[in-house]
């Protein structure tokens, strides 16, 4: 398996609180992605990064922000968590040369 670590693996938080999820890679890949997985929707892209401090929005970016200050770390922040953000969040990496993506183990987030 590719060296991708997501933390935390599980989190329960209250509505209105900020939450930060972390993705750490040891592969030195340029591209990093955050997806959310929901039944019936597959994986939907939230944000992605194509380099340090270079990020862009995906199709479901509202309510989320990201930061990448180092090649190996990509943070996803829910600015004010809502129940609709209850989901499983996956981080993925790729070399960006139109190759396959490698996924982390996922973070199950529950907003109550």
């Amino acid at each position, binding site marked *: 398996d590719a060296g991708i670590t997501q933390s935390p693996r599980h989190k329960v938080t209250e509505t209105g609180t900020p939450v930060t999820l972390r993705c750490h890679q040891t592969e030195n890949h340029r*591209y990093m*992605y955050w*997806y959310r997985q929901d039944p*019936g*929707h*597959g*994986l939907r*892209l939230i944000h*992605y990064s*194509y380099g340090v401090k270079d990020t*862009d929005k*995906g199709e479901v970016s509202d309510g989320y922000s990201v930061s990448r200050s180092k090649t190996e770390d990509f943070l996803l922040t829910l600015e004010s968590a809502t129940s609709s953000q209850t989901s499983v969040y*996956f981080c*993925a990496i*790729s070399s*960006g*040369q*139109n*190759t*396959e*993506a*490698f*996924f*982390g*183990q*996922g973070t199950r987030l529950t907003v109550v």
Partner: protein
Amino acid sequence: AQSVSQHNHHVILSEAASLELGCNYSYGGTVNLFWYVQYPGQHLQLLLKYFSGDPLVKGIKGFEAEFIKSKFSFNLRKPSVQWSDTAEYFCAVNKLAGGSYIPTFGRGTSLIVHP
């Protein structure tokens, strides 16, 4: 617009039955196509990929897929499924956006194989 469409959302089979999962993509130009598998409680992992050359590609665990350019399709097949193939299957294309390749996924097909 949906770039990847998977026709079957839920498939239930008995062991030894044959499997075919449909995938169509709506993306012009050169495409790299993928099938990923997600076993229960696990992350996605690559099953097989097509970049160029022989349109019939073979992956792990006896899976194969055929790229038919004229039909914009990349269907996944397995001649004889096993209980351990129970999983969710995702078709994906790397969509070029602003100079970056973005893995873009279909909604997935849940496969249940009864022993």
